[in-house]
């Protein structure tokens, strides 16, 4: 029978299945970080259980680590927030106690879990991957079934290397047309979420397919899969192809030699069969699509950069009105009229080398507007940071007036000192514009790195296509 890509990976990892559809799914790789793991390790200890497969886990601290390069110099001891310090050192202690490999705060390979995994080749095609973080969907770009889980499930996977699950439905999002100059993967995924809505893919795994996806780099595909969860999907997927192979080849944890050939032969089968049936379909044409920007407090509240804040009408009237109040915007107001206070370029959505390159391209020879309180660039990992420095990108950004930070989640969720003050507007390359996400009463607009950098220069939103 014809299968979707999701069906294939599911089938390949199925340990047992009950009549009611509950299944035990074997997990190849669990990624751990400091925020959602301490209670899981504690649970293991209380029940006197051991880790099922130690090498099936890999850890790095990211959510809570400081990004101020000075504060990072002395590692954990230098973390000024004592509660955060305890959390990061707890991850250290747990990894040591259970013998789990960790790229710790001093390690060059440390970074946001979803940047680190692919970079190291810990993320491989055809794998099942879990992490106590909803944006685990990022790894789906590699034709891997990757899902975010809660802490009890983290504990379950630590103890059994399995996850208790029911199969989702299949949703195909077909993207035709070509992205125009100065329009990026982030714009594409914002547009898709705007159309599907934040619950549009609930109960589904999305496979992103079509010309525009095939033309994306791995970085771009990760950006798209990263935000699949914002449409309510359990996971996002992109079929394996030569672009995937080229990215994976030579990564430290990827197979080589004969094993590579063997893996490659299997990976070539990681696509939906031509006549596979999807439960739900959505099509979108991106020809002539402009850069996108979110105006409200949900990732579905998206318009084109030349658009306006919508009128509160229709089924979502109340939501639109609430969001306008929170964001201090008027219906009909032009997006380009919104003045920004802070700029954040970072997060597992957009903190890879390609994103930094685009930001630097926009910033080159220009200056951050004096009305901007802070414009920060936070690379996704120590390796991205090093590469950007080597390519001279960091210097370009610093010369333009951006702050160049140490890797971590930073203002994406604002657990550490990187956050908005009440009432501030931020152009952010992250993935969530929820109320208070980037700081108490802060106002977030989701955009691509090009749009964020251009907004930093102009002081307000502007069509970034004029800058690249």
């Amino acid at each position, binding site marked *: 029978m014809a299968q979707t890509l999701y069906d294939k990976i599911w089938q390949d990892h199925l340990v047992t299945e009950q009549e*009611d559809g509950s299944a035990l799914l074997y997990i190849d790789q669990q990624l751990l970080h400091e925020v959602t793991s301490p209670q899981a390790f504690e649970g293991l200890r209380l029940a006197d*259980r051991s880790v099922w497969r130690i090498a099936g886990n*890999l850890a790095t601290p990211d959510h809570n680590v400081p990004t101020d390069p000075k504060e990072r110099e002395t590692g954990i001891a230098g973390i000024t927030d004592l509660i955060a310090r305890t959390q990061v050192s707890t991850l250290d202690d747990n990894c040591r106690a259970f013998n789990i490999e960790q790229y710790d705060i001093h390690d060059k390979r440390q970074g946001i879990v979803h940047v680190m995994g692919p970079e190291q080749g810990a993320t491989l095609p055809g794998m099942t991957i879990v992490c106590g973080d909803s944006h685990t969907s990022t790894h789906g770009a590699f034709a891997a079934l990757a899902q975010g889980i809660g802490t*009890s*499930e983290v504990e379950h996977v630590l*103890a059994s290397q399995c996850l208790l699950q029911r199969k989702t439905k299949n949703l195909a999002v077909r993207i035709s047309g070509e992205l125009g100059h100065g329009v990026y993967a982030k714009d594409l995924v914002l547009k898709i979420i705007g159309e599907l809505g934040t619950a549009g893919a609930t109960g589904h795994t999305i496979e992103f397919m079509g010309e525009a996806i095939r033309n994306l780099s791995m970085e771009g595909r990760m950006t798209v899969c990263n935000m699949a969860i914002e449409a309510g999907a359990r996971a996002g997927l992109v079929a394996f192809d030569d672009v995937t192979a080229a990215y994976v080849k030579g990564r430290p*944890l990827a197979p080589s030699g004969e094993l590579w050939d063997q*893996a490659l032969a299997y990976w070539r089968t990681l696509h939906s069969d031509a006549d596979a049936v999807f439960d739900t379909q959505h099509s979108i044409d991106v020809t002539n699509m402009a850069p996108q920007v979110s105006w409200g407090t949900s990732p579905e509240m998206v318009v084109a950069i030349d658009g306006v804040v919508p009128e509160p009408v229709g089924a979502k009237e109340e939501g639109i009105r609430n969001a306008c109040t929170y964001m201090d915007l008027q219906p009909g107001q032009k997006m380009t009229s919104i003045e920004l206070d802070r700029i954040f370029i970072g997060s597992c959505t957009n903190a890879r080398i390609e994103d930094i390159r685009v930001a630097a391209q926009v910033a080159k020879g220009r200056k951050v507007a004096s009305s901007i309180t802070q414009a920060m660039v936070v690379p996704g990992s120590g390796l991205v940071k090093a590469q950007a420095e080597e390519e001279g990108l960091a210097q370009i950004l610093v010369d333009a007036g951006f702050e160049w930070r140490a890797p971590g989640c930073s203002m994406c969720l604002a657990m550490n000192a990187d956050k908005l003050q009440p009432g501030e507007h931020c152009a952010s390359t992250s993935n969530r514009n929820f109320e208070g996400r980037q700081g108490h009463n802060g106002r977030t607009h989701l955009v691509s790195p090009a749009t964020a950098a251009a907004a930093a220069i102009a002081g307000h939103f502007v069509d970034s296509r004029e800058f690249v």
Partner: protein
Amino acid sequence: MTPFTTHTGLAVPLDRANVDTDQIIPKQFLKSIRRTGFGDNLFDAWRYHDEGDMGKTPNDREINSDFILNVPRYQGASVLLARENFGCGSSREHAVWALSEFGFRCVIAPSFADIFSNNCFKNGVLPIVLAEAEVVALFDRALAGEDVQVAVDLAAQTVSSGDAVYGFDITEQRKHSLLNGLDEIGATLAQAESIKTFEGSYKQRRPWTFLRDV
């Protein structure tokens, strides 16, 4: 896990769609390495006017008396009535820990986000999906000023309130786990032999995924 069999309690209407887990428990409380201590910070940004942080107790805070959970008649409510897509966003299980510690035993909504719903089941909190019209009926009564008492019977899969009885779906496995307060990890480990057998053949098929094993 705490078993869930039947529960009767007052329903408090939280009249907002797409309530996300950042709202349920804001990030500053995620620095804790414990499973408890989140109840006072449930819906923190809505419950208090001032910005919350770890270590601040409710006595030091400016209470937002307009927020529904702070309304005197809803003190002691143990059923949360919510709108669609409740619990979307971050996977933080802290959201369920906060709801549970505050005293909620079940949440009724027309739909839930996937990870949040999973997390509920792991903590003895029952997420009940009712039809849109049924949820609207409950909201209408509550918003009209009625004290809506709700009786949930998990074995019968029903929610009774006033004259109405609504049925809801749940998988056998989840129902069984909740009714018996089962330790799910223990149940999975009871199948250790199946896992080992699978792992053995899987390793033959996909040896490159075991490169880090020694």
